[in-house]
């Protein structure tokens, strides 16, 4: 092992040895890449078997911070699939509102981080300032900035009271103008075009072969979205369109995510205006033995929950599959052959839970560590500066 200890990752430095991505490099291009995950493994599936169906929602909510609605949404749909039972109308609308609010907050978070990886720190601070608005909206509606504790098998735990809605709609509207300016500033920026177009391409065939999901596969032309294909919640009562682009490079993944934020805002506002009155919870008393499958379109792709119940009040087996589990292996197709300075942004393009992208390191063939996470981010930022100078803008 290299004697000098190079801690890696500005935000999540772990010791140099347990990288998340290990890129084997020859010269500038990446030859091979390996990943070692498991730093966040907390045995949630085994824990969920200890808890009752109602309590298990809270374990599931803490799988990932930026999709803490997607997993309970899919889990509650899986439990409702066992019985099978239909959730009351108002609960469907509330679920959709909270899920779309979380999609906005998750995409903005990724958008800011991608900006940082490219050296656009103003974009990072600007977007995260914008993100505080949507976090306030979610705090008003659900009582906490994230980990919303809104979902329950058979409905929703809390109601949205009517006198909060005007303030919420005002805050949501305040996002759109700033986002327009951001979109124009980023998407028309020639440096970003040169920097992001044509790198880390995931072709349509590879996306299908790796069974990639969500924005990662929609950027490669795979037109699949659980909200459109198997409509649930209030998604079929609101008109919105699915964003699909063709050439699957990092630039398209940025475009897909930004346009999806606009769609989510449109869904939230229509749902808030058309919120029907009525029950919000079915008060499910017992769950018959059987199996249930539930899915939800999380910000990063489809979360899939398989629940098997043996008639008791605790799940007998609970299989959780997060979208990043299917998107992550696709790094073999996108990173190999690219230069090291592009590696950071390509790996971040599938939007894995972001504390994973911070743990990167580059080794030479004898396994000696030569570059750490911050060096990789610095390399990526230098390349942007070089491109900007070349184009005579800086």
């Amino acid at each position: 092992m290299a004697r000098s200890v190079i801690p890696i990752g500005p935000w999540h430095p772990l010791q140099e040895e347990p990288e998340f991505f290990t890129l084997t490099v020859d010269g500038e291009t990446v030859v091979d890449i390996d990943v070692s995950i498991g730093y966040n493994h907390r045995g949630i599936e085994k824990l969920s078997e200890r808890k009752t169906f109602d309590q298990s929602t809270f374990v599931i909510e803490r799988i990932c911070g930026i999709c803490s609605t997607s997993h309970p949404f899919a889990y509650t749909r899986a439990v409702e699939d066992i019985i099978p039972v239909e959730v009351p109308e108002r609960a469907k609308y509330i679920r959709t509102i909270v899920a779309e609010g979380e999609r906005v907050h998750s995409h903005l978070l990724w958008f800011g981080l991608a900006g940082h990886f490219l050296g656009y720190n103003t974009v990072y601070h600007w977007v995260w300032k914008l993100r505080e608005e949507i976090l306030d909206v979610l705090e008003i509606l659900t009582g906490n900035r994230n980990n919303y504790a809104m979902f329950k098998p058979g409905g929703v735990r809390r109601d949205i009271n009517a006198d909060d809605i005007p303030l919420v709609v005002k805050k949501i509207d305040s996002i759109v103008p700033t986002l327009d300016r951001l979109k124009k500033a980023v998407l028309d920026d020639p440096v970003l075009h040169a920097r992001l177009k044509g790198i880390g391409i995931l072709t349509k065939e590879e996306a299908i072969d790796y069974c990639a999901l969500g924005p990662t596969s929609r950027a490669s032309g795979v037109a699949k979205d659980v909200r459109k294909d198997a409509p649930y919640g209030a998604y079929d009562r609101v008109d919105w369109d699915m964003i699909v682009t063709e050439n699957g490079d990092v630039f398209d993944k940025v475009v897909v995510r930004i346009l999806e934020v606009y769609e989510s805002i449109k869904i939230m506002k229509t749902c808030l205006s058309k919120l029907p009155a009525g029950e919000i919870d079915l008060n499910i008393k017992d769950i018959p033995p059987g199996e249930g499958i539930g899915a939800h379109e999380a910000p990063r792709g489809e979360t899939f929950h398989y629940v098997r119940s043996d008639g008791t009040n605790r799940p007998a087996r609970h299989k959780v599959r997060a979208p990043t589990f299917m998107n992550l292996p696709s790094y073999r197709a996108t990173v190999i052959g690219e230069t090291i300075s592009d590696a950071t942004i390509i790996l971040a393009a599938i939007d894995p839970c972001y504390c994973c992208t911070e743990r990167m390191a580059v080794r030479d063939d004898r396994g000696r560590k030569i570059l750490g996470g911050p060096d990789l981010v610095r390399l990526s930022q230098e390349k942007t500066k070089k491109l900007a100078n070349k184009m005579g803008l800086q």
Partner: protein
Amino acid sequence: MSITLNALLKSPWVFHLSTGSCNNCDIEVLDCLTPRFDIERFGMLLTGSIKHADVLLVTGSCNRKSANRLKVLYDQAPKPCVVIAIGECSLSRGMFIHSYNCPVPLDKIIPVDAYIPGCPPKPEAIIAGAVKLIQKVRGK
């Protein structure tokens, strides 16, 4: 000992470490850096390396893979080093007390000076906790 710590805490450099967390608390720590809460007003700067860190912000429920790395990293931190545990997972592993991959709570691995409960704690709670700790160390 407390003189150096007292001097260090004039502008504490913060180093954030996630040991198997759902990254909600990590996002709240990052929120402290962004324009709305901006802890750089108090001289708190996020450093990239453990060598420059005075305050170690730990989040996450120390699962097996992260736990021994956490120990090694704590030994590398220049002493005196203040440890702040953020979020229920790093206090008592919160929801994951019975997880087969999270054997012991954080304060059994490294000595912890301040605990900030919350799931996730509000950025204001993190700032208030840090300020309270600094006043306590200064008060000594």
